[in-house]
């Protein structure tokens, strides 16, 4: 582990034991990064370390997303009173194992990590009125037992299909297990028509879990307000456009939409919510 070459340390947190929440910027619906940002903001987390990009990302230019130039970031934020560290990062383009080893080295050496949680979203065909659930994948039977009181959907069976590859979170859980660090990946299904905007309910679901698990005593007033506002705006759209209401009603009745219907729903929701109604 080469400080100054592979990573920069701005401060040395004094933590005897900690939980690490990991969010990847390339997340479906960006719900993981939003939950991580929310935790960091609410708990006044301070950046104390970063991984240098040059060994893990091609730096032959920058990508542009939503009209803004991007640059790979891998930053650690510490919330010392809560014994919580948040790591927000882009998924590296190469040297994956070395990158994960570095994350775990920093986590073990500088904040004595005890548990790791990755957070993210997954696409769902359910309507936004369906209560959000939290799915979990753990890296040990003991972790599964410990999380059994948190109403998680924790019986997933899954095997990578030929045209897919495992998530980077799975790679992290596997690498953590090699060091006897327990971990869980938490996934919230997001209605497909909220992917391009924001699913605050999904974000809340993740934060609620951490609030209970880590006894964070977070006041959800602000996020509840955002959820209520979004629901109200979608309700207004439904009452104004019967076609959109019909699409969402079909989803609420567990019926599927055609490709054209789905595309129209996505387009209309995005326009409506971005239009500030």
């Amino acid at each position, binding site marked *: 582990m080469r400080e100054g070459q592979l990573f920069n340390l701005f401060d040395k947190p004094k933590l005897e034991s900690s939980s690490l929440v990991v969010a990847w910027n390339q997340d479906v619906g960006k719900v993981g990064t939003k939950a991580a940002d929310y935790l960091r903001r609410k708990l006044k987390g301070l950046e104390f370390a970063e991984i240098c990009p040059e060994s893990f990302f091609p730096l032959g230019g920058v990508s542009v997303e939503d009209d803004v130039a991007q640059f790979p970031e891998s930053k650690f934020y510490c919330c010392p009173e809560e014994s919580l560290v948040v790591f927000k990062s882009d998924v590296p383009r190469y040297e994956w194992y070395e990158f994960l080893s570095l994350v775990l080295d920093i986590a073990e050496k500088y904040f004595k990590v005890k548990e790791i949680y990755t957070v993210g979203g997954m696409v769902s065909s359910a309507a936004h009125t369906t209560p959000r659930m939290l799915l979990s994948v753990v890296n040990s039977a003991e972790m*599964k037992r410990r999380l059994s009181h948190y109403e998680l959907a924790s019986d997933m069976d899954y*095997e*990578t299909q030929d045209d897919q590859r*495992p998530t980077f979170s799975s*790679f992290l859980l*596997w690498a953590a297990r090699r060091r006897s660090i327990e971990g869980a990946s938490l996934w919230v299904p997001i209605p497909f028509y909220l992917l391009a905007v924001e699913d605050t309910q999904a974000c809340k679901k993740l934060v609620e879990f951490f609030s209970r698990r880590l006894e964070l005593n977070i006041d959800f007033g602000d996020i509840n307000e955002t959820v209520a506002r979004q629901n109200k705006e979608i309700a207004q759209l439904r009452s104004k456009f019967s076609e959109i209401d019909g699409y969402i009603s079909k989803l609420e009745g567990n019926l599927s939409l055609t490709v054209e219907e789905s595309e129209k729903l996505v387009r209309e929701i995005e326009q409506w919510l971005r239009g500030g109604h």
Partner: protein
Amino acid sequence: MGVIFYKEPKLSNPILIACWPGIGNIGIIAVDILRRVMAAEELGEVESWEFFYPRRVLIRGGELKSLEFPSNKFYFKKMGKKDVMFFIGEEQPTDGAKAYAEGIKAYRMANLVIDVALKFGCHRVYTSGAAVAPIHHTARSRVWVVPNREDLIDEVKSYENTVLMSDIEGRDGQGNITGLNGLLLGVARKRGLEAICVMGEVPIYIHGFPIPYPKGSKSVLEVLSAALGIEVSMDEINALVQQSESEIDSVYDRLPSEIREQLDKLKYVTYAEPSEPEPITEEDKKKILQEIDRLFKKEPGRD
């Protein structure tokens, strides 16, 4: 070391045959058949997670059970006086998005393989790959041989159906061997091991397509088995050649007649007569490749 050993056999004067996938999977098909025919035992494997992104995850009851990486395994076979080791990699490590190895990871992988070769007292390494050549698919593939030392040239010339780079018209003994099948030759040379790369020919109009070319593999298998002094049953490779040839024929028959006529000229290409005019011009070649590309894209299941 980055390698897990299942066994620590004492090997007698072994040679190592190492291979990774490449054009037409020519080398890997030949080496894998040889390994199986010789009933080589597993010796160990490279800790692949340092080189590759995982291929598959298995989750049962919400618990991550396993993560599977491309395998990179060593095998051995005791033969008495001269034992044989194999290394077979399922994928070439790269630092970027390229299909063939290059950069630090490739160099590290090549050195790991040579570390293991030296640990068991290897004196020679063979690698294998493909040589893209202006040949017709009905012709027997020849084997291009490239040693990493000058004093091996006479030996490699003695293998049947082989050519040196200098035998190839216009090459003047020059060329490149892309990826780890080539890099290993260089790393072996740097570390004082003799090494030979044997490359089966693949027709120029086929090499760009993601299909195996067992005819080239068969020629490689013949050379390797002769070099080892063992007899290998050709039943399996012959069956693969037959199947592949009928698939290529079916595409070939559907080519426009003017393209087929151009390609048919390749039947008469012989290296023995390099003074003959080029049978196909660069312009012809471009048209032919475009036409074949179009046909492959139309094949069911290839979309």
